[in-house]
């Protein structure tokens, strides 16, 4: 599960009103490199919940990866930033698309229900009494 997917997922247990963002607990994760596509990031960024993304990177023990406040558009999409190692857009790209959580859990912030992640697949199946 990539953090982009985590950024979309919410809990749907009965009675939960928002269920977002899910708290990430990762026991095992890996990175796989993907080509950077600046246009894609540009289109995606307004739809990303920045705080949830930052919280997810913190949960993976990567406090340095993203700043608490979202960098400005100018900074992210500055000319040539995509080719600079460690630039904002590279970090965002890395966080969203290159980190794969293999093992762990997603915790609903309201009900505390834990959704396990196994082999990279989050199990969002609800029990009968939770629907």
């Amino acid at each position, binding site marked *: *599960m*990539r953090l*982009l*997917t985590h*950024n*979309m*997922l*919410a*809990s*749907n247990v009965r009675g*939960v*009103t*928002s*269920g*977002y963002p899910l708290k990430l607990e990762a026991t095992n994760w890996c990175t*796989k*490199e*993907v*080509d950077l*596509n600046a*246009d*894609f990031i*540009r*289109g*995606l960024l*307004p*739809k990303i*919940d920045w705080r949830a993304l930052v919280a997810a990177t913190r949960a993976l023990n990567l406090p340095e990866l993203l700043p608490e406040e979202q960098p400005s558009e100018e900074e992210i999409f500055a000319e040539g930033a995509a080719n600079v190692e460690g630039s904002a857009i590279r970090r965002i790209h890395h966080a969203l*698309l290159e980190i*794969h959580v293999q093992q762990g859990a997603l915790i609903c912030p309201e009900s505390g229900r834990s959704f396990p992640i196994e*082999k*990279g*697949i*989050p*199990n*969002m*199946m*609800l029990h009968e009494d939770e*629907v």
Partner: protein
Amino acid sequence: MLRPVSRRYCLAGRRQLRATSALPRRPSSAPLTPRRRRRREQDTKMKLKQLEGLLGGLTQFPEPKVELEQYPTGPHIASRMLYTAENSFDDIAGKVVADFGCGCGTLAVASALLDAEQVIGVDIDSQSLELAQENADDLELDIDLIWSDIKQLNLKGVAPLQLISCPSLLLNKLQFCLSCVTPTARCSLLATGDDELVEAAFISFLSFLVTLSISKEEGTMEAGRVPPMLVQIQGQGRGGGEESRVETPAVASMASDRARRAAARGLVYRYRGREKLHHVASQAVYSLHKTSTREHIKKAALRDYNAASAEVLCELRYDLPQSYKFHKKREVDIAVDLWRFVPKAQPSS
């Protein structure tokens, strides 16, 4: 495991697939992923034949579950669907694509092969998901899989009613859209993000869905009878004698009056879902429907379901292999249309 020749041919020049997926990834200094590099070297987009060849090598349901209505999406139709979406309308490459009810991941893999930036596959059956994962790994593709009932899946926890007020949030719309899909639905949603416009495309086998929701409603499965849809697929179902009395094409597959009434209900239900979908998609909705229902679909989409235009892009054949014991023929071809609906503009608030 034996692989069809076409697949090996397509992958000629690459090392053993199974072996490479287990090896560590290439060092971080390398500028391109193997897939992209290959593509750039060829300096072309993936060819249709090549796509079909790769899809032909995927593992499909070894033991399809009749209660989940698992039918494989064949390489022929899957490749053409996605190829059209990509080459005629630019809806795949560099986009986020979600495949709902992905099964063994044929459409998800096809999207990834066509360079979708992020592919998400959702299914209720964990065994299918494992297969989908294997299929993706074999081709060195990354697909995010989620084990969930589509009906219960909540992407971005915003209640549907609030969604209309934030039309720019693609992901919320996705959830909105999801809330209308039944678990038996055999469908895929392609949701894509663009600079300004949010696009979502929906691929479904509506005429199948119709019958599926009925067989559930009527409890025919539990009673051990052949679901209406399968009656029609066999072309000689047990209730076949009554078929000739059914006039409407959309329900021609129904074997009895009871089923026909249920079909009407099913239609209403499904179309209600479709109406919402058109609210969700701002650019295009792709959909597969049986050719026999063409007139009805067109009328319904334009009149009731918020479509500004509806056109048939091409006629395809859904090659359904013998999947269950009660299938009498080895393979049946079903004529289906690939539709493209353009929804009316979204209300801005």
